[in-house]
């Protein structure tokens, strides 16, 4: 009898105990994959060649820094994550990792990633990474997310820094090109997330996060998506005329921005009755398109850089 109870207690402990994978999940691997890709593009399109090992380790530590800020975000937002369906299974709200552990992992990895990036690359890129972690964990998670419906607009800066850090890794500085890569992600983030918020409305309402859909209404959110998509287009197309652009990028940007504008226009024209009728088909379509939009823009930057030695890429 006693043995059975002891076994049961042990089984419960085993269920609650975190595996290595749970600690990896704290670092938001899916977000890290986007960070790795955009930072890699930042390094590869820069005019200064780098030793491949230094480039590889620098990108690894940029990704680790992004993961650290993800762990800090999960520590701070555990109460919100527990309420939202999309995030309820994250390690902290699921009870697998203690909040204090998430804080410890986040702080330790923040320090390691910044110092190692400094050693692998340079001080400018390390300072940019430190600022990105601070911006995401403190400015976005602790301050903006719960206090303003513009949280996504300003918070989007955190996700926009990786290509700029990648560029700084290679060149040791900031330039028009790196600012435009930053601006591309920065302007893309609001319409991308607001399209998601339109069809994930229950989640954000239940968690009490002041998303635009909750505070200003859904019609206003649709207008905001259109306005930000219009503002995004010149930034995305403008990058074509810098040293990292070229005809391939220009053609890609023209097609993708026309597609995104059309999608935003379709979202703006609809009302809730129409959206409910087809289960937010257009909003979901635009959200998916926005993922390809960003991937293909950065892919086009990469194509220009890769083809330049053969006389095809660039102007």
């Amino acid at each position: 009898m006693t043995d059975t109870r002891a076994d049961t207690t042990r089984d419960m402990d085993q269920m609650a105990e975190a595996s290595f994978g749970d600690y990896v999940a704290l670092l938001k691997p899916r977000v890290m994959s986007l960070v790795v890709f955009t930072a890699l593009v930042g390094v590869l399109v820069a005019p200064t060649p780098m030793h491949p090992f230094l480039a590889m380790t620098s990108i690894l530590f940029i990704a680790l820094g992004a993961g650290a800020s993800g762990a800090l975000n999960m520590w701070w937002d555990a109460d919100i994550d527990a309420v939202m369906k999309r995030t309820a299974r994250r390690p902290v709200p699921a009870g697998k990792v203690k909040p204090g552990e998430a804080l410890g992992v986040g702080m330790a990895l923040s320090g390691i990633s910044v110092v190692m990036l400094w050693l692998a690359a340079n001080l400018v890129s390390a300072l940019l990474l430190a600022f990105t972690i601070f911006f995401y964990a403190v400015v976005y998670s602790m301050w903006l997310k719960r206090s303003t419906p513009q949280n996504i607009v300003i918070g989007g800066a955190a996700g926009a820094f990786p290509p700029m850090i990648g560029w700084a890794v290679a060149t040791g500085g900031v330039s028009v090109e790196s600012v435009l890569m930053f601006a591309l992600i920065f302007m893309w983030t609001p319409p991308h997330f607001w399209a998601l918020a339109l069809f994930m409305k229950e989640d954000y309402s239940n968690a009490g996060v002041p998303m635009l859909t909750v505070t200003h209404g859904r019609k206003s959110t649709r207008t905001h998506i259109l306005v930000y998509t219009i503002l995004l287009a010149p930034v995305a197309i403008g990058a074509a005329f810098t040293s990292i652009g070229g005809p391939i990028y220009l053609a890609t940007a023209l097609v993708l921005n026309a597609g995104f504008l059309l999608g935003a226009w379709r979202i703006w024209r609809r009302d809730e009755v129409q959206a409910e009728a087809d289960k937010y088909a257009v909003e979901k379509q635009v959200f998916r398109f926005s993922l390809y939009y960003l991937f293909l823009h950065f892919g086009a930057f990469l194509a220009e850089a890769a083809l330049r030695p053969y006389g095809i890429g660039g102007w």
Partner: protein
Amino acid sequence: MAFREEHEIHKRRFGRNLGVGLTLALFIGIVFGLTVVKVTSVGQMQGFDHVLRPELLPKEGAAKP
């Protein structure tokens, strides 16, 4: 025969310990690799204190080969 009986926690935490061990091994590998690349790519430095060796610089006014 084992010197010490394996505790249940050793089996239970094997995966986590293995993950931490491999991560640390990777980290050591990266630091070693960085050291090798930095030392071999910086050029004319004295090994013991990482400073430039003035005697290796071309002398001013010396005829170019």
